[in-house]
């Protein structure tokens, strides 16, 4: 979006039909809304999700991430808005004065439950940390759709040294496409191809990653909520049953490579670096890194034989 918020600039293509935004108003005012019967003051321009959080109400989300423009596709965050025929997505819907919102009505609970069941009956959610809790909270039983329910089972794509792609876990949240494109990397190596249930994340002509435009910044891994995109190191450790987050330490540091000064969080287990992330709220990175910061740590772990120094 350019400054007038009207048209995308000539030189910046957008990875999907850009998500339209209500043109922002000038001064920030506070508006009065009610959530679950409670009065809430929310700043104009903020979303229902933000207002709900402010009121201490937890709203489940999946395709939403603080550092990306909401695409509102998973529909897990839907809430009931008085006067609206359908439920509305909390993550993208802006508050307006006088809104009366219910976040825990029968309708809301049913839709959230069904979204969880729809997802879990079609993809593998075992690596989505919040999944179990949400299922319990909404009483979701994905097995209701039967053993023969069509799903996205497929082989894991391992075609490069740095990360693996397990699209049997992909919920099509669009975040990796956003991160690869206008929202971080501007590389445009991937898009959503196909339609309907066949829609999937793909390089051009479905070519392997090494032949594509991918620059291995790993920003897609950083945003993937369900472990469909995973560091090769993490993937292999999980396969071998050695992955243990409880035993890991996270150390914040600054990337040593260039002068930008990206914040890194180094995850170590058994004294070895197992992955590198960056905090979403960091003003420089917003969670995004480049190949060096994300993957360039192997040298730390190479234990040169003593004679190499002689």
């Amino acid at each position: 979006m350019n400054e007038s918020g009207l048209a995308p600039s000539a030189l910046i293509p957008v990875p999907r039909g850009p998500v339209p935004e209500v043109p922002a108003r000038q001064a920030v005012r506070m508006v009065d809304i009610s959530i679950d019967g409670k009065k809430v003051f929310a700043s104009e321009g903020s979303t229902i999700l933000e207002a709900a959080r402010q009121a201490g109400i937890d709203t489940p989300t999946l395709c939403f991430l603080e550092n990306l423009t909401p695409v509102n596709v998973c529909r897990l965050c839907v809430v009931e808005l008085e006067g609206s025929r359908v439920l509305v997505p909390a993550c993208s819907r802006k508050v307006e004065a006088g809104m009366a919102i219910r976040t825990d009505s029968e309708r809301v609970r049913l839709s959230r439950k069904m979204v969880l069941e729809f997802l879990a009956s079609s993809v593998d959610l075992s690596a989505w940390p919040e999944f179990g809790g949400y299922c319990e909270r909404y009483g979701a039983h994905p097995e209701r759709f039967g053993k023969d329910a069509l799903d996205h089972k497929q082989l894991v794509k391992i075609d490069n040294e740095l990360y693996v792609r397990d699209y049997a876990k992909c919920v099509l949240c669009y975040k990796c496409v956003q991160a690869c494109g206008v929202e971080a990397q501007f590389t445009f190596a991937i898009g959503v191809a196909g339609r309907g249930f066949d829609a999937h994340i793909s390089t051009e002509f479905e070519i392997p990653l090494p032949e594509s435009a991918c620059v291995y910044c790993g920003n897609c891994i950083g945003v993937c909520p369900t472990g469909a995109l995973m560091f090769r190191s993490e993937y292999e450790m999980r396969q071998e049953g050695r992955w243990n987050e409880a035993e890991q330490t996270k150390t914040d540091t600054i990337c040593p490579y260039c002068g930008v000064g990206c914040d890194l969080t180094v995850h170590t287990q058994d004294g070895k670096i197992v992955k590198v992330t960056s905090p979403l709220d960091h003003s420089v990175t917003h969670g995004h890194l480049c190949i060096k910061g994300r993957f360039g740590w192997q040298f730390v772990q190479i234990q040169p034989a003593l004679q190499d120094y002689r």
Partner: protein
Amino acid sequence: MELHLTNDRATPDEQSAVDGVLGAPKDRRVIASGNGHGAGEDALGGENRRHLLLPVLHALQARTGWLSPGALNYAAARLDVPPAEVYAVASFYDLFRLEPTPPVSLHVCDDIACKTQGADALCAQLESSLGQEGAPCMDGKATWFRSPCLGLCDQAPVALLRSAGKSPREAMVAQATAQTVLASLQNVMEDKEVPAESRPRIKEFLPQLGETQLRLLRRVGQVDPTSLREYEQTGGYAALRRAMEMGREKVVQEVVASRLLGRGGAAYPTGKKWEAVLRQLRPESVHYVVCNADESEPGTFKDRIFMKGDPFAVLEGLTIAGFAVGAKKGFLYIRGEYPESFRFMSQAVAAALGHHYLGDGILGSSFSFDVEIRRGAGAYICGEETALFNSIEGYRGEPRNKPPFPTESGLFRRPTIVNNVETLVNIPEIVLRGGAAYARIGTPQSTGYRLFCLSGHVKRPGTYEVLFGMTLRQLIELAGGVGGTGRLQAVLLGGAAGSFVSPAELDTPLTFEGVRGIGANLGSGVVMLFDDSVNLKDILARIAKFFHHESCGQCVPCRVGTIRQEEILARLTGNRTDGSTENEIALLKEVAQAMRDASICGLGQTAPNALLSAIERWRLFA
């Protein structure tokens, strides 16, 4: 932008197809997008030509029958769009093939209206003479596919033929038999005409032809649709003149006063949209008007009648809309499976340009207005207004979340009016007659005229124009009564997104408010009859397949819900229920509720309607 391209190169043939749309390389001038006059989006500074992606893909498909990686690379480079995105867009549409495909393709409708007229038997015959759907046939020169509704349900069963090459051809085969389809296929392969008796005919399927009370349909079948002169002689363009004398404010006031409700399916007040866009008019404003001619709702074919039979009326309505809201450009988005409508509308645009009804200084005034035609490429969802914008702009046809509504942020993020073809054809009537007088026609809540598309087991299928207020029974009588066995089992009202009604409900008035009373809606004017020989469960299965196939896949409730609904229905129908029937029906209802409540757009929100309406009315699985 620096693009990373694979090593695949376009052939000279493919390059020339792309250059035919974009101009020779280094020449930044845009040649045409099908109808011979300037394209280009002023809001994008003339640089971003991504909106030409769809026309480019069409040109390639028409040249070689498929989109090769080399061809897509070339398109990507010429348009400065990353190849992964070009691929993402191309793979969205049914009519684009991404695997080597024979140059001639046959698309045979096996959708619900055609099913009542033997489409299943037709497909079975074709399978035995041509082989499996999708496999090469005729010495590898052709292939065939089953297709969703092709918009010619009054002349069911139907097939569409497309042949790629230097002079690509497209033809519809109406009232098809295996014989006529195979003969037409042979002819197209030999570059001969499709036999006259298998081509669609307008007049025979306008049973009211010549009746003097007709207003919207009065010219169709009576004037030469290619003659601007005949259009003028029959009152054409009088409304545009009148509108320009009245001024935009007054035109919009009249449309508001007419209480016209949109005929595209959502029944939104047209005047409200126009007012909202006009209100934002400033000297520097860029506004757009869009005519929605995607017409892909199964059972709908009325818009085609106008485009083929009275194309200038569509243009006049669109031009008045452009004048009224201060737009300089209009887009007409025609579904890809309507080759003839595209041809007639393109001719009409060229003729109107030549006679100053379009272009700079219309009728000697300072009002300038251009119309650009875009063809869809096989995606029902592109009829949804915001998906349609994305499709025109060169993105995947995925609906946008609303708000913001099109009147605020529409095509190219500008305030935009979208109206259905039939809605726009009413506009000249309203301008000439006056909004208040128009509002006295029909009923207070459903004003004016309405077209209905009658198909299935009806004696005289076709397009009918009636005043609001007629009952369903009267309409069926007007169409000669129930066909087939003569014993009516069910009527599908409003299309696949509408609902089934039973013979006990025939006295319902066909008004917006009347059908609401029986939990139905008029949708796009579909009235499809099923006699008692039809297995309704088969029809439901086809509807479920339709939604599964047409979901854009963006949001979870629709992407997965349409599949689960299809699976549950198949289990119920095949007596393979998981647990009790009641359990399955309860599950189906929960799926439906989530789709209705949580889907992004009308497709997912209405996908369970027809199924549930039938299951509930006839207790199908009790």
